[in-house]
């Protein structure tokens, strides 16, 4: 009976275009869309690009060596802070108007003015760097004056003012600042989008199981009526059908993983067996969710599909598919929501493998998925057992 059911369930699933779309085609389409949308985003947010600025290149600026030299240094090399345009006042205004620069600098004696059009991070960096040059200038003046005072106190009347200021300037401007960098290499938050896509694909296996369970329900299909009154063991039949659904689901996931690894280049970390494990557990959760929806939603087949897709999409939203920060916000503010959301469990499990060295968090997610599947199965089993019809 198991083999018989397995074979015909497999044929039934593979011949259903709608099911093939949701389990095989839809995740692949989404993967292509993600790749198109995010390939440039990761490049643009993954590194800090130089800020485009302009400097009004008048006599005041040319005669102010601290600003001139410092900005020249900041605008050179591959790791430069600024892309600087030295222009006239009118040209600077025009560049700002056309949004080609974050702002421009004008120097008037000791006074400096920064003109910006907005309050973004580029404008803030520009203002702070100018503040920094201003404070360097003040430090040079302060230390220079105290050194001159010291020389006078020591009775030295042949003071070389220029040498003192040059020495102090060199000391201030060339002094190295050491900051120890302990940052991780695995910081690409866009992987969450792809992880939630895998989670979505896992949960869409629910459509497969739901379709097959509908064939076992007497109040939904004629096949269900015949199956209900047949003497065949329901457990064996169900197991055969679900195994077929599981096989189709694994095939869909395999395609998705191949696409993500070889076409998109998503980083899944180095723990392949655990990735396979969480995908299998996720798929089982999807299958059991589909069974529960089939059993408990007293509505037509189409309405059930719509409801299941709605539940999965809402789960995807909460786990970060339509905005990466969403998952963290939910984890912090309403943690219970993602504790019962299987999409978030799968996403978080893959995230734990990618980001953390320890396996603790992964194990919590894996166990949560097992508990979710068990709960879905138990309540579905109780629901299936109680079904008695006086008349259909």
């Amino acid at each position, binding site marked *: 009976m198991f083999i018989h059911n397995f074979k015909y369930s497999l044929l039934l699933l593979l011949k259903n275009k*709608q099911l093939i779309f949701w389990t095989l085609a839809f995740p692949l389409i*989404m993967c292509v*869309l993600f790749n198109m*949308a*995010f390939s*440039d*985003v990761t490049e643009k*947010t*993954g*590194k*800090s690009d130089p800020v485009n600025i302009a400097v009004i290149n008048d006599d005041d600026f040319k005669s102010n060596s601290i600003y001139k030299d410092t900005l020249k240094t900041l605008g050179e090399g591959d790791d430069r*802070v600024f892309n600087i345009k030295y222009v006239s006042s009118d040209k600077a205004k025009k560049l*700002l108007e056309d949004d080609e620069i974050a702002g421009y600098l004008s120097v008037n004696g000791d006074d*400096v*003015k*920064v*003109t*910006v*059009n*907005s*309050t*973004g*991070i*580029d*404008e*803030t*960096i520009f*203002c*702070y760097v100018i*503040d920094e040059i*201003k*404070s*360097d200038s*003040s*430090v040079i003046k*302060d*230390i220079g004056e*105290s050194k001159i005072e010291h020389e006078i106190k020591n009775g030295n009347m042949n003071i070389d003012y220029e040498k003192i200021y040059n020495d102090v300037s060199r*000391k*201030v401007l060339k*002094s190295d*600042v*050491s*900051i*120890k*960098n*302990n*940052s*991780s290499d695995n*910081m690409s*938050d866009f992987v969450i989008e792809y992880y939630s896509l895998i989670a979505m694909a896992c949960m869409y296996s629910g459509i497969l199981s739901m379709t097959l369970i509908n064939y076992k329900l007497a109040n939904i299909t004629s096949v269900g009526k015949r199956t209900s009154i047949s003497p065949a063991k329901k457990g064996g039949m169900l197991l055969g059908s679900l195994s077929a659904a599981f096989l189709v689901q694994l095939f869909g996931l395999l395609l998705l993983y191949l696409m993500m690894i070889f076409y998109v280049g998503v980083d899944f970390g180095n723990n392949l067996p655990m990735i396979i494990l969480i995908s299998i557990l996720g798929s089982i959760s999807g299958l059991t969710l589909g069974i529960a929806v089939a059993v408990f939603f007293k509505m037509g087949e189409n309405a059930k*599909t*719509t409801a299941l897709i*709605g539940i999965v999409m*809402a789960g995807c*939203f909460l786990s970060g598919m339509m905005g990466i*920060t*969403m998952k*963290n916000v939910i984890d912090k503010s309403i943690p219970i929501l993602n504790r019962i959301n299987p999409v978030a469990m799968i996403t978080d499990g893959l995230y734990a493998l990618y*980001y953390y060295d320890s396996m603790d968090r992964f194990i919590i997610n894996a166990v949560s998925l097992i508990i979710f599947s068990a709960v879905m199965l138990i309540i579905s089993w109780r629901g299936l057992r109680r079904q008695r019809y006086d008349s259909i």
Partner: protein
Amino acid sequence: MTVFSAFLKVIKKNIVMIIIYTGIVIIFAGLNMQTDNTNGKFVSEKPSVLVINNDKGSEISNNFEKYLEDNCEIAEISGDEAISDALFYREICCVITIPKNFGRDTLNGKSPAPEIRSTGEGDAAFTKILMSRYIRVLNVYADDISDEKELIKSVNEAVSEKAEVEMTTKLNISSLAKASTYFNFAAYSLMSCILFIICLVLSSFNNLMIRKRTIVSSKNYKKYNFDLFMSSLTYVLAVCFFFAVLGYIMIGDTLLTVRGAMYILNMFIFSVTTLALAYFLSTFLLPKNAITGLVNVITLGSSFLCGVFVPIDFLGEGIKAIAHIFPTYWYIQNSEIITTAENLGAELPSLVSNSLILIGFTILFVICGIFVSGKKRKIA
């Protein structure tokens, strides 16, 4: 009225779907609107950081911590895992650790290095600039000043030097940014609500058996089509009105200005285009489940490629070129112009041309719909 009643029945059946999509826009927009008003005055963007001071006993270290507090948003997060998560999800851009004996080593001229764990992005680079500024001044003064209090005083004086900043824009940027976030994301929810319901309703009415019954019934054909059109338009108007009211609740008085009216007008034009698209799709007489799939692909696809989920500036040039074929792109373009234009009058030609393109899409979808339905009728 019969047509309208049937329309309401389909809406009632799918109310859960509408609630889900509306809930998504409320949550998403609500989370992205927690910024302050700036009203044309330059306010530095403060990076969010977490500071771990392992040298609490030293005044130099405490002063460094205070400097960071003055220039950054300091997050209060405890626990290694929570800190790591906050860093990964960009809740903070850096974790700065002031090492033990930082103050004493500074006074001894050892130039101790604080530690940083960062995302490596723009705001993290900015935080590094902030730190470098303070530490350089501190190390330079520490060579000449041995008294802790005097050293702190000199450093504080130097780092408090500020250049004059002039901001040219007179727009209330943060308030308009909220409106832009809301209306950009509304494109996804609006499109889902309209496409899903209208496609389902029109497909039900286009069902061959129902169509045959309608044709042989006494109901005037023109009146039937008019009822169907009016019902659809009423639904679209109701959805638009609902999203406008929701927008007012979430954004506030900005929606009562000229810019607010333009956001709503833009949304209405986009909704009518979506209605035309729904009409076109429904002429293919697809089964209901196929409609669900198609609507998901169209709404998610156009949202990802046109700047609804990801800011349009972040998308590559190739993707932006492809996005031109979606009405959503022109809707987002108008939304961006309304948000950023200093002088709306000067940008009116761009706004009108983008709206005309949306109207062009509407006409195209209607013509294609008439063509396809004509073909289908002949086949039937």
